[in-house]
């Protein structure tokens, strides 16, 4: 198995791109990534996307995007794992290079949420990520399911709504320094508490905003990367784990077993542990998800994830900085593309290109993307050049 590195990256701003189509967004990110890598072509393209068929009426998008990106003829396949589609596409791209089958691979995550013109359509589309027969059919949306988890968590651990505010405040604080972020504006705890409810206790400020965006990276074997750039970022771990889709089938709904398994596999591959991670691009689709993820990945004890945030340990100066460029909450959540945005942001940090949010001396960065409420969890660990 070959060692794999990232030699190029590109991203569009996360926004409501009313004037850009899905293929335009993807092409923009891919062009930027290829340009960054100093290449014009690749052997394969893996596209991570969740909802192209549902909201844009277009499946078969890997071939479509390859064509429009000027790469007609190469191997191209769409990969879907709900909101972790982008990370899943990276997993496949990684396997293609590591196995020796492909030399240069583009991984692109793209989502065009605004093709779902009403919020009702968008919510119904997102509910495709949870169990349709046993959850969706009974009226449970993604927000409602997370609300159930949040409420139970608050009850079990004596945590109040206000205690979740630091996740949101931290994310927005960091987004202010990210030109690609959707909401680059700080947010106060007062604003957090005044936010309208979506599914109590999950408020608008607990939920990452859905939007459009595309991010892309270029992979190649590490020994070839050395000839192309001094800035290659090694992938030292790539691990996928699954769990039941339905939260009522989980062994313990307040423990993200998928995140635990995925993180453990990744730590093993990287020959490292949670204490060795210098930053964590976490899947903060909801504040409760961020808290549970920190616990499942070993950064906090059960029920203490919120406390880690309150004590400032998740801030850029903290023990385990998360959402260093805004996270899903403030950079934005273009569903299936998010997993690749997380990787792009890790690469920015590890290369020293993170601008005002630059962490000093970061060596190992971890990214974790979650599908549904935890049915698929994909973890990658990257190493600085």
């Amino acid at each position, binding site marked *: 198995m070959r060692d794999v590195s990232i030699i190029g990256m590109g991203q569009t701003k996360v926004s*409501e791109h*009313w*004037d850009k189509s899905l293929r335009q967004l993807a092409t923009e990110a891919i062009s930027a990534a290829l340009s960054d890598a100093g290449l014009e072509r690749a052997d394969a393209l893996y596209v991570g996307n969740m909802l192209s068929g549902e909201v844009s009426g277009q499946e078969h998008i890997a071939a479509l995007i390859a064509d429009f990106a000027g790469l007609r003829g190469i191997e191209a396949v769409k990969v879907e794992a709900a909101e972790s589609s982008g990370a899943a596409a990276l997993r496949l791209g990684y396997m293609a290079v590591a196995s020796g089958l492909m030399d240069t691979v583009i991984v692109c995550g793209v989502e065009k949420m*605004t093709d779902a*013109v*009403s*919020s009702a359509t968008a919510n119904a589309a997102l509910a495709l990520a949870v169990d349709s027969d046993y959850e969706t059919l009974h009226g449970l949306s993604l927000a409602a399911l997370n609300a159930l988890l949040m409420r139970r968590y608050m009850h079990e651990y004596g945590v109040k709504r206000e205690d979740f505010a630091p996740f949101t405040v931290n994310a927005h604080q960091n987004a202010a320094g990210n030109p690609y972020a959707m909401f680059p504006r700080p947010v106060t705890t007062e604003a957090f508490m005044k936010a*309208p*409810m979506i599914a109590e206790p999950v408020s608008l400020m607990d939920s990452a905003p859905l939007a459009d965006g595309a991010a892309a990276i270029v992979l190649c074997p590490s020994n070839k990367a050395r000839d192309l750039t001094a800035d290659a970022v090694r992938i030292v771990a790539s691990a996928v784990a699954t769990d039941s889709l339905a939260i009522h089938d989980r062994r313990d709904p307040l423990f993200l077993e998928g995140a635990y398994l995925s993180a453990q596999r990744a730590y093993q591959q990287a020959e490292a542990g949670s204490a060795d991670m210098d930053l964590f691009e976490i899947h903060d689709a909801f504040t409760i998800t961020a808290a549970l993820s920190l616990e499942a990945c070993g950064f906090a004890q059960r029920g203490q994830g919120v406390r880690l945030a309150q004590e400032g340990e998740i801030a850029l100066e903290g023990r385990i900085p998360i959402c260093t460029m805004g996270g899903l909450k403030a950079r934005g959540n273009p569903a299936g593309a998010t997993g690749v945005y997380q990787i792009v942001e890790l690469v920015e940090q590890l290369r020293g290109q993170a601008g005002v949010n630059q962490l000093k001396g970061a060596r190992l960065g971890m990214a974790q993307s979650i599908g549904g409420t935890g049915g698929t969890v994909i973890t990658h660990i990257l190493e600085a050049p």
Partner: protein
Amino acid sequence: MTIMKPTKEVGIVGYGAYVPRYRLPASEIARVWIEGQGGLPIKEKAVAGLDEDTVTISIEAARNALKRASIHPQEIRAVWVGSESHPYAVKPTSTVVAEAIGATPNVQAADFEFACKAGTETIQAAMGFVASGMARYALGVGADTAQGRPGDALEYTTGSGGAAYVIGPKEESLAYFEGAYSYVSDTPDFFRRSYERYPQHGSRFTGEPAYFKHVLAAGQHLMEELGYTAADYTAAVFHQPNTRFPQRAAKKLGFTPQQIEAGLLVPLVGNTYAASSMLGLTAILDEARPGDRILLVSYGSGAGSDAFSLVVTELIEERPDRVLCTRDYIARRKEIDYATYVRYRKKLRMH
């Protein structure tokens, strides 16, 4: 030149407003649909009564305009009504209005349509009609009794009202036009098929790519071509689908909250659709002084914006008695509940 400036100067000889007396508070709609939770886009909206429709509202507004114009109705050579709630798909509103005000039979009559800018189109047409010499006076009306789908976000704001303007020579005008401009594109943000009762809309798509794109482009372009900035204006009025949109548009064009205050009626009457910006202008004119410069920018879904730059003349001071001001109509209110509103607006299918 892309702005429209008639070779002969024309203006507003008379204007009139009409707002029905019934008011449905937004809180009452929230009470019925969402147990009173959440924020409200306006305070209350004006509701047309059982015996009111776009025709009756247009007639009332037109009569007020004629009183202020002090002209004989037989001198009006065109009666144009813009609305998105004409009572008939085929049978003009304008002929009923023309006859009711005594302008028939030597009159051009037509119904205009373009969502919420159907009324301001009649003004642009009237400017051309009068300036060309084809008419001494032309009457343009914007009026609506718009319907919102029960439980939909738009139900909070769909209101009823009307505004009428007699356009004539500059020498007889209480405000004359410096120029006009229209900015139009094919943007389907809000639409209704003839066989449907309620319109469909594109949620967030109705904001940036629709309302703001057209309103800002129209306002900016007209001001630029005329060599003005927001500071040159005493007042500005925009199409008002809710309170926040016109406030945001004003800010982006450089206007202060004070400049748009007089014409911002939506919190108290709702979105009167084709009447919206035109009604706001009547409220501004009620208090205007000679020399005031006013900017008006309408917006119609589909989409487009009509912009006008006006200057008030000395003739504004001749305020005739016994014509109700817009604020009088707004103050004349009778609160109703949701059930009464459903009955008045015929939202219950009886058979």
